[in-house]
């Protein structure tokens, strides 16, 4: 049920990838930054909720850097993201102090739920899901809150300006929108959510690892695409919800292929191929279209010939 926690990241990836039209690689770093900040703060005895909030801020700062590199220094978006990602690797190591920080037996955001009587209900204990319930409950709360806030935000004047910037920057500027600021704002929100997701994941698995961000952009894209394909993309609200279901489905698929005997080390290869195939789908279709057309055309010709 880690899917719910990854859903938070998926929503972040969606904001840059679909709304702004940028593939933002800083995500790879900022998810670890979120995990590292939360882990370090909790390890040094801070309140886990405050630690998680600081993780969110840390991610937002990372987004700000990528945004400034891209808009003010005119570095291409992809490269700006890579630069931030690489820089964050060193920064994350500094925050963690070592490559892996354990949170075992520390108080986390889930502790309150772990102790609640609902979670320890004998039924759940017998079903052997009691240990997962805290993450599910908090995950649902977080996801619903984020979806609600974003649904509101992207309907406001500023939110509409961000959407217009991603849709058609020329038009946005002609309507008086400062597109640079909107791109920066979008990257800040996106990376903030990604870092929040990292903080939640680290606390759920009880450790933060310097490697945990690797491939996360691809996982995010996979979840976005799965969500769009399987759960529709009609209204903005249903799109946001589809991201959540996309992230959960992705986790289920991964769990399934692992159960079917795929070595865990091959997971990233599997994800990359899946995403590549999904992204190539429109191209395949356009290759196939003339083919099917000519087949149909041929059939019509044949019919005409027979009739003449």
């Amino acid at each position, binding site marked *: 049920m880690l899917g719910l926690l990854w859903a938070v990241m998926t929503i972040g990836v969606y904001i840059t990838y679909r709304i702004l039209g940028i593939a933002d690689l800083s995500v790879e770093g900022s998810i670890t930054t979120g995990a590292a900040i939360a882990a370090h703060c909790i390890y040094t005895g801070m309140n886990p909720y405050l630690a998680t909030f600081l993780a969110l801020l840390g991610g937002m700062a990372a987004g700000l850097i990528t945004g400034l590199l891209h808009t003010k220094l005119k570095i291409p978006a992809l490269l700006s993201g890579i630069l931030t990602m690489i820089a964050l690797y060193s920064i994350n190591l500094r925050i963690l102090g070592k490559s892996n920080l354990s949170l075992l037996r520390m108080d986390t955001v889930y502790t309150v739920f772990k102790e609640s009587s609902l979670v320890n209900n004998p039924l759940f204990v017998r079903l052997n899901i009691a240990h997962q319930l805290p993450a599910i409950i908090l995950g649902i709360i977080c996801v619903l809150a984020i979806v609600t806030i974003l649904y509101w935000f992207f309907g406001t004047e*500023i939110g509409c300006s961000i959407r217009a910037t991603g849709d058609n920057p020329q038009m946005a500027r002609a309507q008086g929108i400062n597109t640079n600021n909107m791109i920066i704002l979008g990257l800040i929100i996106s990376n903030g959510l990604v870092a929040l997701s990292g903080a939640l994941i680290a606390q759920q698995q009880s450790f933060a690892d310097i490697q945990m961000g690797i491939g996360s952009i691809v996982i995010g894209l996979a979840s976005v695409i799965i969500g769009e394909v399987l759960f529709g993309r009609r209204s903005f609200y249903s799109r946001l919800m589809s991201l959540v279901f996309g992230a959960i489905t992705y986790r289920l698929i991964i769990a399934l292929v692992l159960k079917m005997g795929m070595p865990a080390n091959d997971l990233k290869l599997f994800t990359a191929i899946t995403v590549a195939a999904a992204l190539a789908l429109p191209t395949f279709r356009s290759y196939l279209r003339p083919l099917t057309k000519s087949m149909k055309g041929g059939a019509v010709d044949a019919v005409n010939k027979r009739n003449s």
Partner: protein
Amino acid sequence: MLSIRGIHKTFNPGTVNEKTALNNLTLELKQGDFVTVIGGNGSGKSTLLNCIAGVHTVDAGSITIDGDEVTRIPEHKRAAMLGRVFQDPMVGTAANMGIEENLALAYRRGKRRTLKWGISNQERQLYKELLSQLDLGLENRLSDKVGLLSGGQRQALTLLMATLKKPKLLLLDEHTAALDPKTAVKVLELTDKFITEGNLTTLMVTHNMRDAIKYGNRLIMMYEGRILLDIAEEAKQKLTVEDLLKRFGQASGEEFANDRALLS
């Protein structure tokens, strides 16, 4: 209203692709002037409009709109004073947003954007009325995505967006060139109606000499980044396409080279 003094614009300076698009161009527009702009391909018409709008910054000279010097002001800030329609119908609107959302973006041009809801019910009523004036049936499709509209519908919508908040200056860059002839006539008539009703100061680039003569109170012809001919009021009313070609030949020592302009 618009005062352009000696502007220069050179693209890719110091390279083999160096191209001087505007060469010491000076132009004054009075409030309410409706100026049509013609000129051969590459004579600098689009560059002139883009420099006024702030898409490009000029290398030298100054641009003043209604007393405010805007020469160094970025594009999104100048937008508060300008309405713009482009040649490509795709450029003027956001395809993945609704018709009403596009209008709402234009309605807030020049205002600070806040966390207030992006569109109000009152506005919807206003947009409905304005869209019904276009007579394209768009008034019942407020929430449809703009990407579903035809090129002509999109240009009409862009025109409405450009004039929704009365601009100090309206910039039209061959905005009917990409449309089929029938639609082009319709959009051009709408344009003339909006300009006349709003008494809008306008620069309209057109590839069609007949349209350039028919519309507006003043006509300028550009050549190699400067203004070659400037014909206003009565002199313009008497103008014919043949006159225009002859005078172009006399002034430039060349034949007018814009196939589209001659054919149409």
